[in-house]
């Protein structure tokens, strides 16, 4: 007999330590600088996703490591007593709710300027002032939300310092420089936003309009940079980079930022923010539509709601692909983390996600179908709607089908296992990917029908064009089904995901080619009759509300899993969470917290919407002011 020690020594290599580059000098100077910058940002309403500065509350391990091991930053080894408590306050729930509220508002205020910029550019190109007015109304809503975002960012910073000082200290040691740039970028964003908003009516016409649009571009560039910086801090906690085998951080800030999951999260959040922003302003327009007394007002807010929904759908379509890319990268980073995500304790979360995304797709489509009532020519397409609905609901049901069923022992015995003979395969990825792709395709088809509903093509090759569209969709869907069935039934688990890339490519090709073809077919087309903006049932507005509520709730849920897959680690495999709350909460518990957060967010959003309205209201205080007659 012999031990494994020899084998291990023979097999394992040795660790290498690198010198950290630190343009800000010693750790204490860097900490102080970071703290000053962030405190300054907070005073001015800075927002931050994660801790941005160091405090002198760092435990011996961190500070000690910085002093005695200049080559790196060690994560402290904490015990439950290292986490300050406040009687009657749950630390984790507090940070969770504040962080989530901050994120919801941040997503909103980062997204709105993106499509405001695009709408303004469309207005400039078409010289249609309605676009300019709508863009202004959108930015007006977000300007109040911007302050709230900053306040919530400050609150998050405060709650991290209070409840998780050692984590805060560790992250600020790692990210000192980026905190500094974050604060600078925040000032730049504030300046650009205020110029953009307050200068809207001043910078009109000719060169001034170009200047205004350029400010919008700067605003978006800085806003996106801010998000990328904060994403670096968040993703470092998930997939830390610059860590040597001993768990010591020995890289520089860029190494920490440019970690494995940074770009996947950047892409996913960028797209999701746009869809989310669209859904929130859609809810705003829906409420104004329902409250509107005059037909012109209803027409205006109907148009606004339509555009908001269009933005939300446009971003929603590629979102599953970005989500898939993120999940694949999580697997690539750590198979263990990937399995925890999709096949472990969080597996059932994806059934909840299916319900929510199904809700999003159904409500967005339903709104489009209701919107076809604005057109007198829509009757030609009404007959197809039921088939679209069947395809989307059918896909939703496949996506919703879990692989493992919840069964009693008797049922298990009768079934011969936890997998249903016919339904089981519907629960695995090839079937779900197929369902999602078909859902996306039929949503694109809904949009195509909506676009066509009020127009009559005049080109000579209409029939050939329609036949080509039909062939495109038919062969495309057949390909999706073939890929799904082949990889679902005839390959082993490791290769089942291989269906996803060709399926995504099939879907994208169909969408791009069919929209291009349709644009050519309807070039120079005839309008059936002017669109009747405002001629849409009230229930369509509830679809917009549902879109906003489901999106908010879904973001909260996915925030839980993004953070939850770290399990009992503050920083995966590096910095262990030793707090009493280190355990992973159940899905039900998380859903309750997300629901509370969603309600709080909705209350705050209503407040923001109300604020944006009262700025234009005037009260006739006749007789109140000396020498003023009023009226």
């Amino acid at each position, binding site marked *: *007999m*012999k*031990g*494994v*020690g*020899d*084998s*291990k020594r*023979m*097999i*394992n290599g040795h660790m290498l330590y690198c010198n950290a580059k630190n343009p800000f000098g010693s750790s204490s100077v860097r900490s102080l600088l970071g703290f000053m910058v962030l405190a300054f940002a907070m005073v001015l309403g800075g927002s931050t996703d994660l801790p941005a500065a160091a405090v002198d509350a760092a435990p011996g391990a961190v500070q000690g490591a910085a002093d005695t091991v200049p080559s790196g930053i060690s994560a402290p080894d904490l015990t439950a007593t290292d986490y300050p408590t406040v009687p009657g306050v749950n630390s984790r729930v507090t940070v969770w709710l504040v962080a989530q509220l901050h994120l919801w508002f941040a997503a909103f205020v980062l997204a709105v300027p993106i499509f405001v910029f695009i709408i303004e550019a469309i207005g400039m190109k078409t010289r249609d002032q309605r676009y300019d007015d709508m863009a202004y109304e959108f930015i007006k809503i977000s300007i109040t939300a911007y302050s709230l975002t900053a306040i919530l960012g400050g609150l998050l910073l405060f709650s991290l310092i209070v409840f998780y000082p050692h984590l805060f200290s560790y992250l600020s040691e790692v990210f000192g420089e980026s905190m500094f740039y974050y604060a600078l970028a925040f000032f730049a964003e504030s300046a650009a936003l205020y110029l953009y908003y307050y200068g809207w009516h001043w910078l009109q016409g000719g060169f001034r309009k170009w200047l205004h649009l350029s400010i919008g571009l700067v605003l978006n560039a800085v806003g996106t940079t801010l998000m990328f910086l904060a994403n670096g801090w968040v993703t470092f906690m998930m997939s830390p980079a610059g860590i040597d*085998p001993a768990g010591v951080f020995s890289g520089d800030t860029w190494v920490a930022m440019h970690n494995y999951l940074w770009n996947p999260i950047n892409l996913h959040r960028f797209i999701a923010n746009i869809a989310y922003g669209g859904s929130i302003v859609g809810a705003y327009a*829906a*409420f104004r539509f*329902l*409250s509107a007394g005059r037909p012109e007002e209803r027409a205006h807010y109907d148009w606004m709601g339509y555009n908001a929904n269009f933005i939300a759908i446009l971003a929603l379509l590629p979102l599953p692909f970005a989500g898939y890319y993120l999940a694949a990268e999580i697997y690539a980073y*750590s*198979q*263990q983390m990937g*399995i*925890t995500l999709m*096949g*472990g*304790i969080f597996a*059932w979360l994806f*059934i*909840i996600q299916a*319900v*929510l995304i199904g809700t999003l797709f159904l409500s967005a489509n339903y709104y489009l179908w209701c919107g076809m009532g604005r057109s007198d020519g829509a009757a030609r397409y009404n007959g197809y709607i039921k088939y679209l609905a069947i395809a989307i609901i059918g896909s939703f049901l496949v996506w919703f089908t*879990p692989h493992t069923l*919840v069964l009693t022992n008797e049922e298990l015995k009768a079934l011969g296992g936890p997998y249903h003979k016919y339904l089981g395969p519907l629960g695995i990825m090839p079937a779900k990917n197929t369902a999602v792709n078909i859902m996306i395709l039929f949503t694109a088809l809904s949009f195509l029908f909506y676009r066509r509903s009020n127009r009559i093509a005049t080109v000579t090759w209409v029939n050939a064009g329609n036949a080509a569209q039909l062939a495109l969709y038919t062969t495309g869907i057949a390909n999706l089904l073939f890929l799904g069935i082949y990889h679902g039934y005839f390959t*082993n*688990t*490791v*290769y089942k995901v*291989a269906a996803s890339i060709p399926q995504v490519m099939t879907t994208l090709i169909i969408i791009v080619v069919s929209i291009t073809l349709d644009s050519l077919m309807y070039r120079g087309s005839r309008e059936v009759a002017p669109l009747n903006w405002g001629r849409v049932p009230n229930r369509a507005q*509830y679809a917009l*509300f*549902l879109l906003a*509520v*489901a999106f908010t*709730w879904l973001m909260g849920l996915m925030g839980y899993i993004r953070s939850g897959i770290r*399990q*009992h680690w503050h920083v*995966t*495999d590096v910095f262990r*969470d030793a707090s009493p709350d*280190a*355990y992973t*909460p*159940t*899905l*039900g518990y*998380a*859903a*309750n917290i*997300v*629901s509370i957060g*969603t*309600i709080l967010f909705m209350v705050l959003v209503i407040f923001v919407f109300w604020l944006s309205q009262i700025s234009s209201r005037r009260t006739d205080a006749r007789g109140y002011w000396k020498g003023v007659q009023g009226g």
Partner: protein
Amino acid sequence: MKHFLKVTIFSLLMIGFFAGFSNYGIPEIKPAPPPVEEKLDLGAMTPEQFIVLGEKLFNGKGTCTLCHNDVGGRAPLLERAGVVAGERLSDTRYQGRATDAQEYLAESLLEPSAYVVAGFGKAGSGDAVSPMPSVTAGSIGLSEVEVSAVIAYLQDLAGVEVTVEIPTDVQTQVSDSDAPDAAPRVALASADEVITKFSCVTCHKMSGEGGELGPDLSRIGATRDLAYLRRAILDPAAEIADGYPPIMPPTYAGEIYAGELELLVQYLASLR
């Protein structure tokens, strides 16, 4: 105000539906609590307990069953790993440096790319790179002793001889798993105490004294090596001495502590 109320009620109902579905529409799975560090007294652990420890690590802290299961097909099943380990050494695809089955198992844990079972390599690597995470670092973080325990479990699982010895020079090891309950008695300090405790001389003669039901051990060290002696105590049925009935109890593996086993084996080896 009417619309505001309607919209509010509608939104609350939807939020309630999502929360209700999450609470009652799917099974409630309580994630396992974070692993708690426990101290193990290896010297007071029997080989069977060591194997049980390996099994718990295999199913728990080691997270081996996340992939090595018959559900997902993400990694090869390990029921026969102890058997095939020896065969792998002569496989042309084998890239490692192990010289026997135990070293191969250790290597497959510590450097899994040395041999990747066909069909289980990282995508695009042509089965040259294993997707298996490090078991000694990060969130798994098995110690050297824990790796030994897992190997012992794999050998036991495959029904082959457990060749791993419990490292007795390490008195205290830290394990994240649920440690098996250590036997309540105090470990014996000398070979004489062990021989008395387990009543060896009831059947065996030592230094001219004792029973004759089993072979005479008075000069056993001159003809048998340490490995044979360990095996004979832990698995007496593995090799029955000529002319003697197979009556030695097979239960010592579950009773004798690793430290005690070493004391006894060293003592027997010294009898020449």
